[in-house]
């Protein structure tokens, strides 16, 4: 995949291959498909190619089976992932190893830790060095399973804490990208994920700057071919006759608050948040 798209569109053509093919093409190890809330490799690759340059550091604070890390390493970026689930940690490690075996020479690490560690002194060396925080909203996490709470609300609260820890780590011109699959409540109504994610970002000190659509359906000829499994079709039928099959992921893009203001004013960002950090903000100003 090329690093820079000639015309970045708000709808990402990331569903040209089905999930098993994407995982195989990304060199992911067997078992990665068990992570149902992973970021699809094509979505991760598109976000990384759009918002980072070679040599940047990509951070996934809740990396699951590590598809983000694999995509970052394969596209020449450094990758750091965190997970507290032993199963995902083993799979993410295996995926990093597989990517490095395939020729990726950039650094790739998976920490067996919760995202809160990023706010401690142990992560002080990362401050102002992360080019992209790319993570998914995970509603099925074991630590969120509480019968009294809405899983989406619990996941959003957890994500708020996570992003709050990640915000000081962003370098100048860095982005935070959150990927979420549309989901429904028990009564069949759609969860307003976009609004919830925007609130989450704002509560973390970030500014939402864009909302994109990452297709899971294939653009074939002049048509859009939905890739819905039998279970998804059955679930949609159970909800009601008028509900639609999910053919996309929601993508919310955030920036540091002051940089979003500067970008609108048309000024390149030259504010280094740490010594030695490169300035990456004005590459978009050139495009404008």
């Amino acid at each position, binding site marked *: 995949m090329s690093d820079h798209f000639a015309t970045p569109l708000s*709808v990402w053509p990331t569903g040209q291959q089905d999930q098993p093919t994407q995982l195989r093409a990304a060199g992911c190890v067997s078992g990665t498909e068990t992570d149902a809330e992973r970021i699809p490799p094509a979505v991760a690759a598109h976000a990384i190619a759009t918002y980072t340059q070679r040599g940047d550091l990509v951070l996934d604070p809740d990396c699951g089976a590590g598809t983000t890390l694999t995509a970052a390493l394969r596209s020449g970026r450094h990758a750091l992932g965190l997970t507290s689930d032993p199963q995902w940690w083993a799979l993410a490690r295996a995926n990093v190893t597989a990517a490095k075996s395939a020729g990726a020479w950039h650094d790739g690490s998976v920490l067996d830790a919760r995202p809160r560690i990023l706010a401690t002194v142990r992560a002080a060396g990362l401050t102002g060095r992360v080019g992209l925080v790319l993570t998914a909203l995970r509603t099925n996490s074991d630590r969120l399973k509480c019968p009294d709470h809405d899983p989406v609300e619990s996941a959003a609260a957890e994500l708020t804490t996570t992003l709050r820890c990640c915000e000081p780590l962003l370098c100048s011109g860095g982005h935070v990208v959150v990927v979420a699959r549309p989901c429904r409540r028990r009564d069949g109504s759609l969860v307003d994920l976009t609004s919830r994610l*925007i609130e989450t970002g704002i509560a973390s000190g970030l500014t939402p*700057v864009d909302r994109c*659509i990452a297709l899971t359906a294939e653009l074939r000829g002049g048509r859009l071919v939905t890739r819905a499994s039998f279970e998804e079709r059955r679930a949609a039928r159970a909800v009601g006759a008028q509900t639609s099959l999910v053919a996309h992921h929601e993508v919310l893009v955030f920036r540091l608050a002051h940089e979003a203001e500067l970008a609108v004013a048309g000024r390149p960002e030259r504010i280094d948040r740490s010594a030695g950090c490169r300035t990456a903000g004005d590459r*978009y100003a050139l495009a404008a």
Partner: protein
Amino acid sequence: MTPAHGNDSAEGESEKLGDAHSSTASTPLRRTRRTRRRHSLALRLRHPVPGRPSTVWPCAQDNLFEGTGLLASWMLTAVVKIVTTYTRPGQRVLLLEPAPHPVQAGPRTTNDTRVQSRPGRYAGLHEAGWTVVRLGRGVQTETAGPHPERVGERLDLEFEDGLRESVSSQAAASPAGQPTRGNPEPDSALDDFSPDRYDLVITAAEPGTLGWLRPANWGSVLTPAGILAVITRSDRSTSRLVDPASSLVRAADCEGLRYLDRITLLRAPIRDGALVVATPTERARSLSPTRPPAPTGQHVPVHDDLLVFSRRPVTEVSLRV
């Protein structure tokens, strides 16, 4: 089709074959599981069930020539898809268009008060009325505006050719028992909707317009199985993304409406397995004249959003109360 010489019909051929092979007399097939399945398949092919829609709708596939109308071709396609997805022939559709809001024409100076109404991105929704009529639905159009001198406009198209009987029978069978014909008074406010109920209400508005477009009681406008479809978009013109879903979903929830779907309407055509973007000149022409250039680092927007709401079941509403 012109029949081929010596090959008049398939039946004739079978008769000839029967004469030639009289020893192999045809015996009726036993009604096995496979034949039942074939029978049901044939029935299904004869009466196709509309497929379940997805959350992304291509709306710019057709090469429609631009006429003198205001309605964009992708909007017309979107309206047709909304109508065919959420209604059946004979049902009633309301097209609710906000009045063009005043915009500033050109750079403003201290003494310059040139303010005029310009058509926005969603202008001309009423023009889809005739297309909806041709789809066999009853149509009523309404213009809503924030000003006291709001221009009210109602075009009752329900009694067009071929629709009189179907719509009348629909009205007689409607649970609300309301007359089909709309209130002829042209100046009624949105809050004072006529007692007519619609199976589908379609509206399209910019995020900033949705604040005043919202009527006091959507539930009273929709039939029990009615659908409210709102075409809008996220506003990227400022430093912060403004998404209209938040306030809209909250208001709809208060009015007893259920957030059913958020559908992406593609404004870029799909050609050879890829989204085709218009040339910069065409894109600049399609953008609203008041819209400032997109901030750097953003994607080129090629989609709008369709927010779909349905009325909550009565039992659910009573439980919530």
